[in-house]
């Protein structure tokens, strides 16, 4: 099925869902840096919220968990890449639902928890790659918006001459609105790209390549955890880490 076929088959309900996902993506983009900066815009929470919105919370967890583990050390301290991780998480979840691939096709090794059915781990890996690409694609947009902020901020210097406070408040409002619109548009475009291109592309991959994608969620999670261990000194603090490993292994046995 091509992207045009898929979108031609969209009903009003599908477009309404794209609209809601777009709004969610815009709000999460605001939360990421511009407003409040709660934990809700982290990939796991963003994907879970998108899953709840689509009526498939398990799908949100299946994509959000490995994405969160891989991105856990993306910290705003000395950061060189400012991706659009929350929009990417929303796009991966929403696009998959719109492509009609849930819930049986997903779950993967995360689906082993809480008795969920074992699903297609390779598709989870493919979606993670798509989410990572979409997040990286957001980097130049974020940087462009920051350059726009600089231009607006310099325009605000006129207030230093005339004392017009409203001008400054309007610039701040404009920056907030720009973030909301950027997140909403980028999220909606991502949902449509995943539904119309990324998921159909998975179907035409050679079987060997498709099978290889099953490694991605596990390796990406492992690398993400490795990055945490490197940052927090596993060699010096091995007792704390070791206690956690024992607890995690036991949890794995129980679940």
């Amino acid at each position: 099925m091509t992207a045009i076929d898929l979108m031609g088959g969209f009903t009003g309900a599908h477009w309404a869902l794209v609209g809601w996902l777009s709004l969610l993506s815009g709000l999460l983009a605001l939360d990421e840096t511009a407003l409040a900066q709660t934990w809700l815009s982290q990939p796991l929470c963003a994907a879970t919220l998108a899953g709840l919105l689509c009526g498939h919370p398990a799908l949100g967890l299946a994509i959000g968990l490995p994405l969160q583990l891989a991105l856990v050390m993306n910290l705003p301290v000395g950061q060189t890449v400012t991706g659009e991780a929350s929009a990417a998480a929303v796009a991966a979840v929403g696009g998959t639902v719109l492509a009609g691939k849930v819930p049986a096709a997903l779950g993967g090794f995360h689906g082993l928890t809480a008795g969920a059915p074992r699903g297609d781990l390779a598709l989870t890996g493919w979606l993670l790659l798509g989410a990572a690409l979409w997040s990286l694609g957001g980097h130049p947009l974020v940087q462009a918006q920051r350059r726009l902020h600089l231009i607006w901020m310099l325009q605000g210097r006129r207030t230093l001459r005339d004392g017009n406070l409203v001008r400054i408040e309007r610039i701040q409002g404009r920056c907030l609105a720009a973030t909301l619109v950027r997140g909403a548009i980028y999220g909606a475009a991502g949902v449509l790209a995943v539904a119309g291109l990324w998921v159909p592309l998975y179907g035409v991959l050679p079987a060997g390549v498709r099978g290889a994608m099953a490694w991605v969620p596990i390796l990406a999670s492992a690398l993400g955890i490795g990055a945490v261990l490197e940052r927090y000194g596993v060699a010096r603090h091995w007792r704390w880490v070791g206690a956690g490993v024992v607890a995690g292994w036991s949890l794995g046995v129980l679940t």
Partner: protein
Amino acid sequence: MTEPIRPGAGEAPARLTSGVRRSVFVRTLALQASWNHQRMQNLGLLVCLMPWLRDRERDADRDRLFCRRYYEFFNTNPYLAGYVIGGLLRLEHEREGAGGLPRGQSQIFRDSLARALASLGDQLFWLGLRPAAALLGCALALTGRPWPVVGLGLAAAIGQLVWRWRSLGRGYAAGYDIVSLLGDARWHRAIAGAKRAVRVLAGLSAGWLLRHAWEGSDQVGTTPWAFLAVVLGAMALPVLVRRRWAGEFMVLATGLAALLLAFALGPKGS
């Protein structure tokens, strides 16, 4: 045992009027909305201080000078910005009617406090509480239920809003004394505790992942030992090379590694 430091204690506590405090608080949430590469949070800071200015009778000359004082470079941790903003409002209030706060004085107070709080905030929030919350969220996600994850997100959101509300009030009450707050040993205890939590939770995620690598090797068409070794190797890689990469690059790199591994180790495909 030392007494906890309470800036401004012993005097009648100074307070912002509730309307101004509410308005300033809401604006502090958007401190970074207009972040730019040249002056960072300068516009956000000025917008945060405006409700206090608007509470006074309009005076274009005073407003102009006020804006000049705060249109310079400013950058701090957004979660701790309430202390600086509250402190600045207190200093402005004290110099009201005396020509306002001298520019140099506000600059020294603002810059030195912002720098110190940025450093504390990076350690406590960005390198402590945020990764700890993310890893705790992952642990909760293992239950397979969405509500614990969303619940954690909401609890973290409410917690930081309460923190920010209180920091604004404490900053105002303390004024210049806020500098003594930075020496409080509780900051460092909290940072150490948060980092310890990150280590335990990272270990927990590692243990859980290894367990499922052991059990789920058939999903990638290889043996449990080979799968376990590859997962352990991936965890060890950043530690051995002492490097971390942006998460997105790591995911893309695993795509390439996955192709190699599948052909080398797993004959089953999907």
